[in-house]
């Protein structure tokens, strides 16, 4: 599909550096990539200026040297803006967006449990979705992880060792 959507135009003029990465895969589906340094500001721009302020989903991906995150944002007319950003695995830490979208809380906790990404600024709370006796340092959604790792690092047996 052609990239002449009004939202695409707006992004292009405000953030020319991301113009290359924008693709409109089909009606109502806009995909783009942005550096993590600009991400936060862009998200605010997307929520206010582009009116794509409905937080739908947060996908975390194990991308070889990086962890990538796609924030799937929607507006009231069915448009879905998918904003991808990434951080190197050596510095696996991102800032929380729960101050803007409280709905993101559980999905951010998922990133911590399943990929081992630190979420800065996320208030302390219950872990989600792994069990309390899950061994430390095991992140099942990483590509190099499989169940055989649990033979060496089994589920915790004592309640006092658990992260509750």
């Amino acid at each position: 599909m052609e990239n002449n959507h009004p939202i695409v135009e707006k992004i292009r003029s405000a953030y020319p550096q991301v113009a290359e990465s924008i693709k409109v895969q089909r009606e109502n589906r806009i995909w783009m990539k942005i550096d993590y340094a600009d991400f936060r500001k862009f998200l605010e721009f997307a929520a206010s200026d582009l009116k794509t302020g409905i937080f739908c989903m947060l996908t975390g991906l194990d991308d070889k040297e990086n962890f990538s995150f796609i924030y799937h944002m929607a507006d009231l007319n069915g448009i879905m803006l998918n904003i991808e950003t990434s951080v190197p695995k050596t510095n696996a830490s991102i800032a929380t967006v729960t101050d803007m979208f409280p709905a993101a809380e559980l999905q951010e906790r998922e990133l911590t449990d399943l990929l081992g990404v630190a979420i800065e600024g996320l208030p302390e709370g219950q872990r989600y979705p792994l069990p309390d006796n899950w061994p430390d340092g095991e992140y099942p959604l990483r590509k190099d992880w499989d169940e055989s790792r649990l033979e060496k690092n089994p589920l915790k047996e004592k309640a006092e060792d658990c992260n509750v």
Partner: protein
Amino acid sequence: MSKKLVIPIGPQHPALKEPASFDVTLQGEKVENILVKLGYNHRGIEKACESKPYLHDLYLIERVCGICSHSHATCFLQAVEEIAGLNIPMRAKYIRSLIGEMERIHSHLLWLGVAAHEIGFDTLLMYTWRDREIIMDLLALLTGNRVNYAVNVLGGVRKDISEEEKGQILKAMDVLEERTKYYAHVTTEEITIKKRLSKVGYLSPEDAVKMGAVGPTGRASKIKRDIRAEDKYAAYGEVDFKVVSDDNCDVYGRALVRVGELMEAYSIIRQLIKKLPDTPLKVPAPLKIPAGEAISRYEAPRGEDVHYVRANGTDKPERVKLRAPTLANVQAVSTMLKKGYLADVTIVIAAIDPCFSCTDRMIIAVDGKSEMTWKQLREHSINWYKKNRGVDFTKVKLGMKE
């Protein structure tokens, strides 16, 4: 000054049929804070999907949830089909919508029964669940199963609807519509229901947006959003329907929205049957899906279901991520219950129609490569109870083949 009291509800409790734990802090009878703990149904489905071909994933994804199995399967397939560039025949799209609406009917009737039970109105539970059998039997007739219908295949559907089946569907819709009119009458006129549900679990429209409430939970708080109308997937662009919403913003509103959606579902099904186009049922689909990514949205009975799929050119996906509607709605529960009463906790939780299997989805065998045999499982449990509880079950005979 009364002392604060924390009451743990769950994870296993009689109010809900699925595990989730709620720590309710009380000041007298009033709820001051509520701490939700989920994850008891986490089964590692997303991870498992990465190690299985798309064909197997479809059946795995269908088992994310028992109630909205068709929703998840369709949502997942829509994403894969978009990546593969498949053009699904119209008849298949109609059948997908048709089964989707039948699923909504059985889910909403189930909810109405559960909600009635939570407020002690068990007669309504008996009535709605009796009527729900009509739609369950119909689904079994059309697909061969009451749940997990497996009607979808990559590129279309596997099962056609015959002229005789069309007649049976229409007949069932007439009966169900008559019954639902009666339920609409009961929910709007019956004074005990009205008094019990009004002003309970209040969620303001602003909070609904902030907490990301979707589906009937959001629509009962004036948020007129429905993915069927916004995204027009499957055959929803071909039928007329109304997005039912309500401005009560409480549990009563959520009940009215679901009853209203039942009436809409009957009308959608009649239109689909009437217009069912004559095309093939499926297009050939490749085993290997080209590299790419797609996001798919679906209005499941509980709200918006979102699936993301990234393909890498092989027959297995690189990543599958899904967000079930309950994950979006459950975060609003603590807002709904603030300043409410302890006695309202169960009905308020039930009112979002929670489905924790969906939400937690994502174990494959815990102890390594092979799955446990019955014998191993039994030995494991005997050892566990000996060690942890000091009870010896060795001599208990189960009479099962080993």
